[in-house]
């Protein structure tokens, strides 16, 4: 009877295979094409310094995209990342300006590490609100995070009255210098923001591929009911991914305001779309359960390198818009055609 079963397809092998990666990663092709084209068009493109600068620009989107990937793997979507980025930037900014404690009449200047921790906690909490709305109150993810997107943005605007916090550098006598470190320092020539991105990406990769949580995430994204019946704590997984996405947005917010040494409440508008585009270009399915950190990073770099290249070569900003849209569709199209041939699913 064993003759009725089909042989295992030859390409299936868990081991890390570079070839397979290249073949599967249309995002990788897209990236190579982009780099090649722009290097040809502008002598300034293919330089180490430009790549580092571009990478540090990608960092913001990359961080958001990692959080978005987690949510999308879970079968959800998070529209609030841009707003959380703004809100946490503003909160970080407010803390750097000092907290006035009315009862004592003093202004407290928390040290930078405390600012960072508080900001991350706030981001995580807002993310957790998303998670609770989606997991426990069963609000569709699109709606829940859309609502939170508005609310978080509104709160950020209210906090600052629409204005931007400046002077985030801190001052030595208040003991709160160092905020700029995140955004503008370099270690061995690599901007800190790039290192932060790399760190987060590696952690996310480890979590997804080596831990039980990672498998729970893929399982509940693939078939939530089945995962639940197998004892996967699906609600916990859900709340956690939104929380992590919120926290990563806060990290992005900190990096951004550190890069700019200012924090404004309108930062990050429409970044959610860019983050989603990065994840999807990276091969993830919006229906959940499919996608990798590597792909997402490639997706983020495709978008970032493309827009930087368009600016460097002096393409008008309108054409930039057109090209961005075109590349998003093309990159995903390549995939559809590729799998459309092989896969049996409709």
């Amino acid at each position, binding site marked *: 009877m064993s003759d009725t079963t089909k042989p295992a397809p030859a390409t299936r092998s868990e081991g890390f295979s570079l070839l397979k990666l290249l073949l599967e990663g249309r995002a990788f092709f897209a990236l190579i094409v982009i780099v090649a084209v722009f290097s040809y068009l502008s002598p300034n493109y293919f330089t180490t*310094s430009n790549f580092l*600068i571009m990478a540090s620009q990608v960092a913001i989107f990359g961080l958001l995209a990692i959080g978005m990937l987690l949510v999308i793997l879970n079968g959800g979507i998070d529209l609030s990342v841009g707003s959380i980025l703004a809100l946490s930037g503003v909160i970080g900014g407010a803390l750097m300006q000092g907290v006035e404690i009315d009862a004592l009449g003093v202004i407290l200047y928390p040290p930078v590490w405390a600012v960072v921790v508080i900001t991350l906690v706030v981001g995580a909490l807002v993310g957790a609100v998303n998670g609770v709305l989606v997991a426990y109150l069963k609000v569709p993810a699109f709606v829940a995070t859309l609502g939170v997107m508005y609310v978080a943005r509104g709160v950020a605007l209210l906090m600052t009255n629409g*204005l931007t916090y400046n002077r985030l550098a801190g001052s030595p006598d208040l003991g709160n210098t160092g905020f700029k470190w995140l955004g503008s320092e370099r270690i061995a020539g690599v901007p800190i923001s790039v290192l932060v991105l790399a760190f987060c990406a590696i952690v996310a990769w480890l979590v997804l591929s080596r831990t039980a949580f990672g498998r729970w995430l893929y399982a509940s994204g693939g078939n939530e009911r089945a995962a639940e019946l197998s004892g996967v704590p699906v609600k916990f997984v859900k709340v956690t991914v939104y929380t992590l996405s919120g926290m990563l947005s806060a990290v992005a917010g900190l990096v*951004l305001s550190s*890069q700019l040494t*200012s924090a404004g409440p309108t930062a990050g508008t429409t970044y959610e779309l860019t983050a989603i585009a990065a994840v999807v270009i990276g091969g993830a399915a919006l229906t959940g359960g499919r996608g990798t950190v590597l792909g997402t990073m490639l997706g983020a770099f495709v978008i970032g390198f493309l827009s*930087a290249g368009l*600016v460097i070569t002096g393409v008008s900003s309108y054409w930039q818009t057109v090209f961005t849209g075109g590349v998003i569709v093309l990159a995903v199209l390549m995939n559809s055609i590729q799998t459309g041939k092989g896969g049996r699913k409709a």
Partner: protein
Amino acid sequence: NDPANPYWFTEGEVAKATAEELGYTANVSSHKGDTNTESTLVDTAITNKSVAIILDPANADGSIGAVQKAVDAGIPVFLVNAEINQEGLAKGQLVSNNAQGAALGAQQWVEAVGDAGKFVELFGNPADNNAATRSNGYETVITQYPDLVKAGQEVANWDRTQGYQKTQSLLQANPDVIGLIAGNDEMALGAIAALKEAGKLAQVKVGGFDGSPDAVEAIKAGELQYTVLQPVAIFSREAVVQADKFIKTGETGAASEKQLFDCLLITADNVDKYTAPFVLSE
């Protein structure tokens, strides 16, 4: 800034034309008010080894970092149209005198409206300090007439569609207003569309700011009372000229970093002198 507004469009075009006249190649890019995009664009300018950056800062506070970055890379920066809250960074800050312009506009507005009645105001994007500067300028003048009562104020983000919808609702809330003063022309034009639709254009006098071609048309048509021309064409040109001087001589040739360019009033009387976008020939 966002080139979908004729004001900023002219700003970029004039600067570009002037630079090319002086033998430079110029790239015009827009940050659309986003400080992160602005910072990205500055990075690119650095990568492209630009000789000078003419920047309309996105944000008085938020743009300091970007300017700092360019200065650190040894590129002179000239700011136009809006200021940043730090001196000594840019080689020059060439801006129209918003306060003076607002006062000028408000006086003309009071003249048109009369000195008693209810009015409403459309406010620009609050993240842009010009919005507050202009609003304060209006305030200073109008409060001298205690019988002019501000019945409402709405943020319409410099945008025509929002100006239209916010005005419609403001009219519902205050059917008896006699005047509307807007932070820029786009919002004023949106308001005019709403007033026309409500048949109240005769009752409500509208004032704008910027001196855009559309507004000038509206003045000609008698729909808009006046607009305040920002000499954007002048200071854009001047910024490039000073940059050129600085590159060649190390001096900008201007007396101070902050240079205010006075605004001019366009009313039905002098509207014919408006020869090109944002240019009023004397």
